């Protein structure tokens, strides 16, 4: 296999970045659509079955055509999809209002900050161990070269992920402060307290995989967690997974922990004064954050690119027959399916559990999650000490 020159490796990395961005921008709109549909199904509705302009415009024409085409409910089921286009168009075309007394620079920088902090985390996520695919020989400039499964193979990938992800708090706090209005300020303050509190049990629940796998590299961690654990390694992972998921809901400001934008108390929380594409960036950042949390959960706890979660793969692998060896190997498709499942869980929980009170949110973090995460860490250490 030829070794790439410097320019070639730069080009390959750019192509990887492009692929990841495409992945993110395919998953995020589909999550938005799925949210409408799944929330509807949870409440015994159909979800979005039409766009707002049912009788005029391109989407209205599409809707009428689909309905005229033989009244097939399958088509009718998907009729909400043009709504995605309508959403994006609305966000782009809407007037971008800047409040008169706002801090202009900070007001401008806040959505960009939360967006960048959300996307950059994907640099350390490895989708599949080793080579993802090799460019065919006819490909210009980089033909015949391998593309690895992650953008950057960082030694301390987990530190990078946690560090960059907590920069996202600044986006929300600065947005709340720069708006120079009371509701956003309250939302920003709440988010500062909430996200800093939940950062602690989140990091602690991620320490258990670190202890068990003795590594901070994302790819290595997911490989060892999936295949290199004894039977007792399951216990700290399952508990840790639940703690991590709870903290993940809180970190991404999703229900039942969406204190920063509690719309029955604060109008829309930190993004009350935002409109147009600046609001769109917050919206995107929220969903990208969800994808990031889902990617970490599936990488560390659900076995990453391997089929079975919680380290069961390593226990089952010797018994998988040779004919089914495809299931014993890592594939990016498993990783993506797990991400999608966790995104579904997000929406599922949103449709089930009502919002917590603010003091309840805090007490859940400090009184229950942190002791449980410490206990989980102790379990992991015991397993590591005696069983590995």
């Amino acid at each position, binding site marked *: 296999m030829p070794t790439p020159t410097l320019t070639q490796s730069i080009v390959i990395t750019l192509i990887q970045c492009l692929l990841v961005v495409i992945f993110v921008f395919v998953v995020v709109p589909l999550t938005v659509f799925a949210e409408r549909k*799944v929330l509807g*199904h949870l*409440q*015994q*509705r*159909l979800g979005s079955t039409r766009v707002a302009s049912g009788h005029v415009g391109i989407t209205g024409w599409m809707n009428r055509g689909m309905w005229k085409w033989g009244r097939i409910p399958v088509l009718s089921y998907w009729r909400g999809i043009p709504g995605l286009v309508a959403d994006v168009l609305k966000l782009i075309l809407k007037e971008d209002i800047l409040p008169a007394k706002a801090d202009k620079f900070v007001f401008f920088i806040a959505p960009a900050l939360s967006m960048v902090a959300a996307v950059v985390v994907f640099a350390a996520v490895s989708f599949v161990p080793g080579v993802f695919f090799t460019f065919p020989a006819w490909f210009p400039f980089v033909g015949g070269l391998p593309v690895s499964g992650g953008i950057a193979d960082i030694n301390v990938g987990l530190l990078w992920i946690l560090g960059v992800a907590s920069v996202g708090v600044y986006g929300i706090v600065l947005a709340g402060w720069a708006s120079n209005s009371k509701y956003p300020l309250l939302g920003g303050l709440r988010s500062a307290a909430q996200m800093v509190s939940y950062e602690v049990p989140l990091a602690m629940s991620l320490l258990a995989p670190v202890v068990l796998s003795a590594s901070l590299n994302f790819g290595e961690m997911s490989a060892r967690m999936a295949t290199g654990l004894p039977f007792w390694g399951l216990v700290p992972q399952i508990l840790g997974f639940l703690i991590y998921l709870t903290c993940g809901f809180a970190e991404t400001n999703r229900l039942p922990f969406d204190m920063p934008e509690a719309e029955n108390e604060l109008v829309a929380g930190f993004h009350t004064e935002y409109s147009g594409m600046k609001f769109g960036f917050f919206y995107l950042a929220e969903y990208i954050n969800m994808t990031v949390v889902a990617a970490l959960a599936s990488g560390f706890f659900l076995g990453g690119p391997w089929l079975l979660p919680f380290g069961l793969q390593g226990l089952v692998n010797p018994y998988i027959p040779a004919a089914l060896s495809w299931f014993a190997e890592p594939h990016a498709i498993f990783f993506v399916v797990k991400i999608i499942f966790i995104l579904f869980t997000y929406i*599922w929980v949103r449709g*089930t559990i009502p919002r917590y009170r603010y003091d309840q949110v805090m007490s859940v973090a400090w009184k229950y999650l942190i002791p449980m995460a410490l206990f989980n860490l102790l379990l992991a250490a015991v397993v590591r000490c005696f069983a590995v």
Partner: protein
Amino acid sequence: MNKILRTLIPFDIAKGLAITGKHFSKVFFTANRRKVPLHIVSEYPEVVAKVQPRYRGRLTLLKDEQGEIKCVCCLACEKICPTQVITIEKGKKEGRKMPFPVRYDFEMERCIFCEFCVESCGFDSIILNHQFELAAYNREDFSLGMEGAGQNMFEPSPVGKFSVAED
């Protein structure tokens, strides 16, 4: 101890998730079949909306088997109406013992659909029908009556199946 266990192990959350998960799977796997839809909401403009038996639509005068208006002008509905949308003019008709409403005006734009008039009626002569689409383009379309341009108090008038007096 029980309380601590319930706090630490989220049974209630699991129960709630199970319920909503059941709803999701039911609707998701039957949404594309036309025969047994489990979702309770229909696609309204394309599919005719089904209303519940207790739905309160437009006020309608009923007729008996001979085609006679059942209303006897006792004015109970006019008196009980909280928004005074009903105006009745008493009159006489040949070959009819009971009084006959010469005019029965109903202004739907102020009606709050409380169904007090139907409950107060001792002769089962009015109902609120099951008409779902009550909107109109002009204000004049909301003043209904027995004669003239607003002569639409009688149709569409289903048989009073869900009369209060029957219960």
